[in-house]
Each structure stands twice: as C-alpha cells, then as structure tokens.
C-alpha cells in the first residue's frame, strides 16, 4: 500500500494531466522532471521563458551549446518545429494567455489558490522573483508540484499564505507526494490520495479544510524511480 510518491512519481502523475497538443512551461527545478513522463501518444510543445518553443531533451555531452539553454540555464535541444523569440515576445506569450499549462513549485498554496513561491519574507533574504509572477497570472492552468508538508512537517496547503504571494487565486491543482487536490470554487477538493494515507490523516497534514472524502480515488504511479 503506497504511503507516498517519490518526486519522480509526482512528476509522472502530473504529466498524465497534460493534454495532447498543450503548450507547457515547466518551472525551474522539480517541475522539469515532468518532461520525462509525458505519455508517448501526446505531442507537447515546451516553452522556456528565455525565448524558446519546442524544447527537446537534454543534449548529449558532445552536443552541448550554451547558447541553447532553458530558463533554468541548463543546456537543452530543439525539436523540429521549434522557434526562438525575444524576451518581450516570450512574456507576451505568457501574459497573453497562450501557454496552456505551467508547472510551478510552491512554498504555500491557499484554499483559494493563492500561490507563494518566491520569497519566505525573511528580512535578510535577497529578493528574487524571476518569471514566476508572470507565469502565475498568465498561464491558462497553473499546476503546482510540491511535497505535501515541509521537511519540518509544516503545512504547505493553508487557509491563507503567510509568505508573500506570487499570484492571487491562480492555482488550479496541487500535486503532492500524497494527494492530487483541485482548487475549486468551493475550496480545495481531493481528487486522489495515496491508499496508505487515510482522508483524516491527509486532513491532519493540511492547513485548510479539504472536501472530497467520499469521491476521491486512489493516487497511483508506476515505479519510475
């Protein structure tokens, strides 16, 4: 009985929700794993905010070209059909609602879909926002990929974010290591949870009231490592 998914399994699960033909932006870090698990029969166009559509996989070592990097500044490749454009055009694409899905990490997500993922608000921290605020308001769907709780066990899904927001009311679905939770009009609704965690336990590990106890199905993922 699964009691939690690995990060790769969360990436796999999220990838199943990306539809054939979607234009997708994957945030830096953990969200980048999603590219590995798109079902073979779906053709997805990956966007990178530095000015790329149609990114392919990592290059082989002898094909690395540092003029061809993604937003995480890692070398990538281009698929046939790809395109380059400048930064204002790239963010016009994002803000203008042309990106179907973006996948972001989160410090906190609130019951109404507020997202906090750029600053823990500490007085000495160097503030740094990048493109997250543009993606949060611009993408048609914002999918969040995160551990359900912090390493200390604190809530990440909460009534109200205590950290500074990245965007207000922007998150559609949260994919965690133990549940898939849609942020609906009425609040967070558990679509799936792992079998090894009861609904009550899931609720106890969540800082806001969850619906879906009677309707949620089992969160399953193959052993992808």
């Amino acid at each position, binding site marked *: 009985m699964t009691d939690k998914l690995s990060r790769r399994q969360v990436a796999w699960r999220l990838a199943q929700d990306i539809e054939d033909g979607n234009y997708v932006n994957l945030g830096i870090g953990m969200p980048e794993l999603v590219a590995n698990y798109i079902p073979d029969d779906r053709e997805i*166009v990956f966007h990178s905010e530095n000015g790329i*559509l149609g990114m392919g996989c990592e290059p082989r070592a002898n094909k690395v070209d540092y003029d061809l990097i993604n937003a995480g500044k890692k070398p990538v490749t281009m698929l046939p059909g*790809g*395109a380059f454009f400048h930064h204002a055009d790239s963010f016009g694409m994002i*803000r*203008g609602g042309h990106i179907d899905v973006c996948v972001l990490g989160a410090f906190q997500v609130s019951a109404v879909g507020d997202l906090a993922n750029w600053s823990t608000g500490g007085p000495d921290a160097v503030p740094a926002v990048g493109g997250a605020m543009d993606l949060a308001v611009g993408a048609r769907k914002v999918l969040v990929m995160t551990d359900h709780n912090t390493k200390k066990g604190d809530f990440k899904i909460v009534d109200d974010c205590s950290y500074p927001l990245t965007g207000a009311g922007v998150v559609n679905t949260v994919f965690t290591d133990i549940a898939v939770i849609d942020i609906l009009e009425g609040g967070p609704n558990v679509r799936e949870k792992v079998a090894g965690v009861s609904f009550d336990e899931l609720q106890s590990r969540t800082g806001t009231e969850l619906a879906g106890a009677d309707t949620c199905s089992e969160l399953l993922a193959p052993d992808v490592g």
Partner: protein
Amino acid sequence: MIDKIIENLAESVSVIEDGAVVLISGFGESGNPTELVHALIDHGARDLTLVNNNAGNGHVGLAALLESGQVRKMICSFPRSSHSEVFDTMYVGGRIELEVVPQGTLAERIRAAGAGIGGFYTRTTIGTPLADGKERRIYNGEEYVLEDPLYADVALVKANLADRWGNLTYRLAARNFGPIMCTAAKTTIVQARQIVDLGEIPPEQVVTPGIYVDRVVEVANPGSEREMIENDVHYPAGGAE
C-alpha cells in the same frame, strides 16, 4: 499529435460565429487573406466587426465582405482609397459604423491584446480630436493618452510558409499586420502559400510561432485583388447585380 492543417477553406472558417470581431491581415495588395475572406462570405456569419488597416477595394475580398451585408462595424486607420467605393457608399448611407484609429495605435492595441497588456499610453493623437475624452498622463514632461487593447475572436491571416504546428513565415513586406493579429485572436486561421514539413522552417527564422495559430489551410496560388479589380471581378460572381 498536433496537426493544425485543415483541408479546405470552407471548413477552416466554419468556426466563425455571428457577432465576431475579425482581424484581417494585409496592407495594400500585400498580405490580404482574400480566399479566407471569400470563404467567410460563403460561410455567412453576420453582425461582424472587421479590423484592417483599410476598408477594402473594388468588389472582392474585404470590400465584398462589406457588400455582403455581414458587417456591422469597421475599425481601421484609413478607409479611403481609390477603389473604396463599397465602404464609402455604405458609410455615407449610414449602413456601417466606423472607428478610425491611427495606424500605430491600431497596431499597438492589437499587440497589447495578444500580449496580455491591459492598456497603454501613447503621445499619438495628443492635440487632435481623436484624443477627445481620453484619459491623459504626463511622461517626461509630455502628454500621453490611454488606449485600450483590441481583443478579437478571429484573425484571418495570409502567410508564406506554414507547418503542421502553425509556425509561419511571411513574404517580404506582406508581413505587416500578420504577426500581431495572430497573437490577438481567440482563433487564428491562416492561409499559407505552402505547407512544409515540421522543421523545414529554421527556428531562428520562424516569424509567428505556432502557439498563436489554430488552423492552417494551403492556398498555393492566391489571387491578386489588384488584378481582380482591374477585371471588375465581383465576389460572389454576380453578387453586385
């Protein structure tokens, strides 16, 4: 699999609904999606608002669409031309609304809609009647007026090359309004001179990335509106009788 290619013109425009705001690319003889516009006449959607730099010439293309009675309002920068008799007659007869927008403001309003910009300030029109009633603001000691984005339901655009992802190039100065119109419509329908295999357009030479394009139809030998006008062609044939 992504395949935006549509086999025929009629199907390509079949999604256009009554009341739609329709952007139509082109400037002079260059970049007009004449065949898509004729397909829209055949399709018959009504109560349209059209956006183009001009207001059509002769009795073909955009002018024929006006003449068909399907259009409620024209948004353009320069409706007058040597062959704009269809628009002129309708306008003087009170049978069509007109919104005149300076050419650069028209282009920028379209771009703003496509780029998620909610409004912008420009010096253009300051001191002129076209600035009447508009909000103002000072930048660097100069007055600017606030202009709104121009959102659209449909864009009809003529391109040169296209692939199944909808990537586009344009020929020479036929680029004009095409790239920005593709970004600003909910549904962008493109007629291309040639559909090529994915990857044949080098990624540094793509002018409109496919993300902005929904439907592509090949029109290998598009007609010349100028030649049609010289030959007094009316669309549909006999339509003016």
